[in-house]
Structure formats: structure tokens, C-alpha cells
């Protein structure tokens, strides 16, 4: 049977979409964004003065006191500050003032919303305050976050770092930070060369982790760089105190990184889907030469190609999710089939990452072409999806790195 989301996972994804539409940080749908005064600020993360005044995070022994609830170290609004909008009963109706966080919200504010929706705790085991959810639930959530072009270190903070901290065997660290991650009070940055040479939001995240092959360390954020995706800020990270090390960590780290790559692939699929939906909508509504541009075959065929690419990337994503096995609940001790014992995780995750990345890239090019000049403006908002797709396609392993890994695995399977 072809792997697919369970009915519960599917329902979770739909409810998440609904909740993000109603209470999410960004106007929706994408095609309505044009011309709105409160269109999502592209430069949502930091102002220049914020960057200048940024205090490098203290590595190692920093206890939970370092991260006060509602304080991400940068004045991001915490859960208490993010006035929920239309999510609950009696909330304002969609369409008017539904943004529960300011349009210029950074990832910290987004995280507050995600915490309320139960997304931040998905990969955290129950005993540390999380949901210990299925890999499928995480994939569903990540696709929806991509669908909404939610900014922030999604794969790092929601997937890989929770798995690293839960499985590394350092109970003190796990007990200190996992509840914070689960509650969405802390964002985690991660570097793991060669896949992740720099940490997204490393300079502002509550914790920064450096993953080697058999060692997990804290990281110290150094120089910051702007990204092609202006909602992201990258930090150079130097390794600091050791969190845990030893041969037992090899499969834990491998699993954490594979889960991160899988979540990134899911985001890419969601980004592609969001761009296709917006493009179809635009092609229906934009009129030239006396009718909608969507009646031209040149436009139709390109959109049809995007649809094909997305439809055939999805089963690869779900096959990889299935290969990753059961939930994080059963893995808190760091047990993992990984690839060492003949599992197909590496191969399947890489195939999903390549296919979802290529589909999203095609979707981005076609979306821009379909939108014409309006898509080239910041005001419109398509650029958020487009640049996110381009940088995530290169993040968590480039297509070339994943293709090489697939061939290595195929050779091993002979």
C-alpha cells in the first residue's frame, strides 16, 4: 500500500490550515495580498538596529531562566502578547483584522501562534511536555507551514533539535529545554555541516545547537548574514560546550537530520502547492486580450506541469515518512533504525527532498511568470513563497548532495 497520511493526520492538516487562515500571522489566500496596506512585511525578522544590538547567546550552561516566557531575547512577542484573533469561538470573522500577530511579526511571534496550535510540541516526547506525535503529523504540519510560507527555523526548531535533545542522553539538558521548545517559548538554531553550514536565526534563537557525526554541542552565534529570503537571517556558528558525545549518538544525529530534511521537503511541497493555487487563481482573474489569461494554453500547460511535479513528489514524501517509522514517542531513548541496519531512510528522505525541491522550484518559476510584473513586487507577497522555495531547496542538503547520497545507498543495496 502506498504510504499516505492517516485520516487523523489529514484532519490535523486541514484544521491547521483553517487555524492559520483564521489566526495565522499572514493574510490568506496569497492572491488577495496584492495592494493590501497590511501586506505581510517581507523584512519581518529584524531591523538594522536590532541586528546591531543583538547580544550573542550564551552557550552551554544557560538554564531556562535565560529565556523568560514571552521573551525570545529580542523583544519578540511571546504567547501572552500575541492576541489570538479568530481562532476560538467568538473570535473575529476571517477577513477583518484576523491577524493575531502584527504583520511585521518575526518568527518568534509566529512561534507563539504555532504553540497555540500544538505544532511546536509535535516532535517533543510527552514526558517533556510535547505531543510525541507521529512522523506523519509532523510532515502534515510542515507542509501546511510551507503552504502558508511561515518563516523561521521550522525544520530545525520543530523537528531536528527536539530529536537531538531528546535522544542525546543528557537528561538535564532535555528536561531544561524540551519543555521550552514544546511550549514555543524558545526557538532553536542548528548547524550541521555540510547540510546546514549556517544557522537560520542563529543570532536570535534561544538555543543554538551544532551537530557533528557523533557529538552534539552548543553553538555560539557569530557574524550575521542576510539571506536571499529576506525573512531569514543566517548566523555563522562556532562550536562551544559539549551536550553529549559518543558512538551512541551516531544514529540519533542521523535520525534528527533525516527528520529535518524530511520536514524541509514537506515545507517545499507546501510552498509549491501554495504557489500553484495562487497562480491558478491569478490566471482565472487576470484579464488580458479580452479574457482571463488562464485561457491561453501557454499558461495552462505550465501550470499543468507544476501540478504533475507536485503530485508525483507527494508519494515520495510519504514513503520517506513511512520509512522513518513510528513516532518520536518510541524513540526518546535514542533508538533508531537509521540507515546502519539496512533501513531505507537515507535513500527515501533524499528522494523526497530532491523531488519536493525540484517541484517547488518549478512552481516558483511558473508562478512568477504567470503573475507577471505584479509578482515581482514585494507588496504582492509571492516573493515570500518564491524565495523560501529557492533557499529551502538548497538547505538541508542540496539536490546534488541528496542525489549523491541516493546513489551511495543504491550501490550499498546491490
Amino acid at each position: 500500500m502506498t504510504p499516505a497520511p492517516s485520516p487523523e493526520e489529514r484532519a490535523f492538516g486541514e484544521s491547521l490550515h483553517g487555524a492559520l487562515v483564521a489566526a495565522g500571522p499572514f493574510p490568506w489566500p496569497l492572491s488577495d495580498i496584492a495592494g493590501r496596506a497590511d501586506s505581510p512585511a517581507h523584512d519581518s525578522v529584524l531591523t538594522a538596529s536590532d541586528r546591531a544590538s543583538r547580544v550573542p547567546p550564551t552557550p552551554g550552561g544557560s538554564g531556562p531562566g535565560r529565556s523568560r516566557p514571552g521573551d525570545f531575547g529580542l523583544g519578540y512577542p511571546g504567547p501572552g502578547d500575541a492576541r489570538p484573533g479568530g481562532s476560538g469561538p467568538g473570535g473575529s470573522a476571517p477577513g477583518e483584522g484576523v491577524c493575531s500577530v502584527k504583520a511585521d511579526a518575526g518568527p518568534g511571534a509566529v512561534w507563539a501562534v504555532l504553540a497555540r496550535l500544538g505544532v511546536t510540541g509535535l516532535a517533543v516526547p510527552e514526558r517533556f511536555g510535547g505531543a510525541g506525535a507521529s512522523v506523519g503529523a509532523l510532515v502534515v504540519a510542515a507542509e501546511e507551514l510551507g503552504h502558508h510560507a511561515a518563516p523561521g527555523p521550522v525544520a530545525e526548531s520543530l523537528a531536528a533539535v527536539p530529536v537531538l535533545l531528546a535522544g542525546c542522553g543528557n537528561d538535564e539538558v532535555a528536561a531544561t529545554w524540551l519543555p521550552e521548545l514544546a511550549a514555543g517559548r524558545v526557538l532553536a538554531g542548528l548547524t550541521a555541516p555540510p547540510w546546514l553550514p549556517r544557522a537560520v536565526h542563529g543570532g536570535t534563537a534561544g538555543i543554538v545547537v551544532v551537530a557533528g557525526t557523533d557529538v552534539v554541542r552548543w553553538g555560539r552565534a557569530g557574524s550575521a548574514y542576510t539571506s536571499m529570503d529576506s525573512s531569514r537571517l543566517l548566523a555563522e556558528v562556532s562550536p562551544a560546550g559539549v551536550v553529549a558525545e559518543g558512538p551512541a549518538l551516531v544514529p540519533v544525529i542521523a535520525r534528527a537530520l533525516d527528520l529535518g530534511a524530511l520536514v524541509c521537503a514537506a515545507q517545499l511541497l507546501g510552498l509549491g502547492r501554495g504557489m500553484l493555487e495562487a497562480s491558478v487563481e491569478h490566471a482565472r482573474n487576470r484579464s488580458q486580450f479580452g479574457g482571463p489569461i488562464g485561457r491561453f494554453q501557454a499558461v495552462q500547460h505550465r501550470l499543468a506541469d507544476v501540478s504533475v511535479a507536485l503530485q508525483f513528489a507527494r508519494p515520495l514524501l510519504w514513503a520517506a515518512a513511512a520509512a522513518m517509522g513510528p513516532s518520536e514517542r518510541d524513540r526518546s531513548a535514542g533508538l533508531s533504525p537509521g540507515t546502519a541496519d539496512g533501513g531505507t531512510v537515507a535513500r527515501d528522505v533524499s528522494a523526497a527532498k530532491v523531488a519536493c525541491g525540484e517541484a517547488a522550484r518549478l512552481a516558483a518559476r511558473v508562478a512568477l511568470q504567470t503573475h507577471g510584473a505584479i509578482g515581482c513586487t514585494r507588496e504582492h507577497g509571492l516573493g515570500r513563497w518564491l524565495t523560501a522555495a529557492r533557499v529551502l531547496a538548497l538547505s538541508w542538503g542540496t539536490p546534488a548532495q541528496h542525489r549523491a547520497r541516493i546513489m551511495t545507498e543504491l550501490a550499498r543495496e546491490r
Partner: protein
Amino acid sequence: MDTSAGAAAHRAWERSLFDAGLAVVSWPSAFGGRDAPPLHELIFDEAYHGCGAPIRIGQNGLFLLAPTLLAHGTAEQCARILPPMARGETVWAQAWSEPEAGSDLAALRSTARRTDGGWLLSGQKTWSSRAAVADRAFGLFRSGPPDERHRNLTYLMVDLRAPGVTVRPIAQLDGRTGFAEIFLDDVFVPDADVIGRPGDGWRVAMSTAGHERGFTLRGPGRFTAAASRLVDLWLGHGDPADGATRDRVVDAWIAARAYRLAAHASLTTTMPPSAIKIFWSETDIALHEAALDTLGANAETQTAWTDGYLFALAGPIYAGTNEIQRDILAQRVLGLPRDRGTR
């Protein structure tokens, strides 16, 4: 370029070029050029981009309006308009597109109403590159009833500082305000600033469009220079084991070389502008895609390559979308029938 300080520096640079006799090598000497033959212009273009010299702030005027004036303008217009353009004193913007008239330019609604000694322009133009820092603009306006799509259009030049003009800069994907909306409210333009006959603007405009799509706006130097930087990038940062990316780098280099050779061939044989436009825009994207792939995970950091990539993505949209160019190529050059459509 989109800030006033940046624009001032670009204008000063244009002035230095002019003083060195290099601003407009192919123009008649009467207007500031040196009567150089087309081959010399190509050589200049390659040398200019080869040494990493800046984008020309005056490009709309220099490469699009000037050839139009030389072909369709009066002697008085050429003498009045071309020399300050060559000196970088007058920077021009193009004002064709409107919110409802993109690919379908003939659907434009901005009007030119007859008045004493000239015309009153009203309406909205948009996506006008460099309009935020430009002095004047040229474009098409409807000077008669709209029922005749390609008739009753007049080609006019308008002062962007004139009363009734409002320019609203628009930020592009890289965050810079590379283009702008232009709102016109009864803006006076004297008869002397009509190019060609009133009502005959479409024909004149198509000659401008030919220059925009052809080798005039996008000389080969920009692409051969980028290809050379790309090869350096590969040699410095490429992973020798990554044959696929190497192939993309080489393919982009081949395309840039083909473009250069075609530009030289075009000195003796003509080439359809639609084919040229499709090729340069796709080549530009291929060059930047290959650079990002070469940089791999490090490509995300904002650099000239990422900014160039975001701009290159617009290439298949501006100067007439590539879909429209393919229609033109297929129907007018290859002679295929038009689909008049039952849908």
C-alpha cells in the same frame, strides 16, 4: 541606483563616460557620439561589462528612445533631447504598461486630450523602471476613441516633474524600488514632444519594442562577463565531483558565447527580436541558477548572485513576456496559423 544618492553617483559616472567620449559611441557626433560603426559598439559593450562597469542608469533613453528618435523624430527633437541624454543630465523612464494593459498593451487607457499648443495627459502608468529617479518618460497615450485598438495612440514624451505628475516607487523582490507607478492628472505636453504623427504611435512604439527585445538593450557583454565570473566561481568553489552542476555552468557559458556570436552575426544578417529576447532572458536565468548551484548551501547568503538571480527571473516578463515572444516567433516568423480560439 534607486536612491537619490545612488542615482547621483550613476549620473556622475555617465558624465565621466561622456567626457571620455564613451557614452554613446555609435551616435552621430553632432549629438555627442563618435559615429562608430555597429561592430565598434559591440566591442565597446563587451569591454564595458568585461571590466565590471556599472549598469547604465540612462539605458531607457540611450538604447530605446534614442534609436526611436533617430528613426522617427524630427531634427529639432534629436538636437534638443539627445545631447543632455548623452551627458547623463536627462534620465528617461518608459511609460507603456498600465494596470490593465500589460501583455495587451493596446488595451491602454491613459489619455492624451488636445489642448492649446499640445496635449493633456491623464491616467496611470505602472512598472516604469527607474521612474523613481528619472526626469522624463516616454510612452503611448490614447488620443482618440478606444474602439480602434492600435489606432488613435500617440507617442509622447512627458516631464516627470511637471504639475499633475505623481510617481510612487514600488519595491521589487530584492527590496529595491526598481520601478514605479506614474499617476498623471491633466499633465501638459507641448506638440514638440510628440514623436511621429499623432495617432500613429503604435507603429513608432513597435520600433522601440524591437530595440528593447534585440541586441540594443541587452548587448552580449553583460552575459559574457557574467559567464566569465561564473566560470571563476566554479573553479574557486565548485565541487569537482559534482558533474551535473559543472555541466550547467558549462551550458550557461555556451549560451553566453552563442549570444555573443549571434550578436556579431546580426551585423550582417537580421535576426527576429523575439528570438533574441527569449534567448537572453533564459540565458540570464541559467547563468544565475548555475551560480547558485555552484555555491550550494552557501548560495542562500545575499550576494550579487542572489540579487542578480531575483532580477533575472523577471527577464522572461519584461520587454514583452516570453509567451508573447513565442507567439510572435511562431506566427510571424515561422508562419504558423493564429489560433483564433473557440473558447
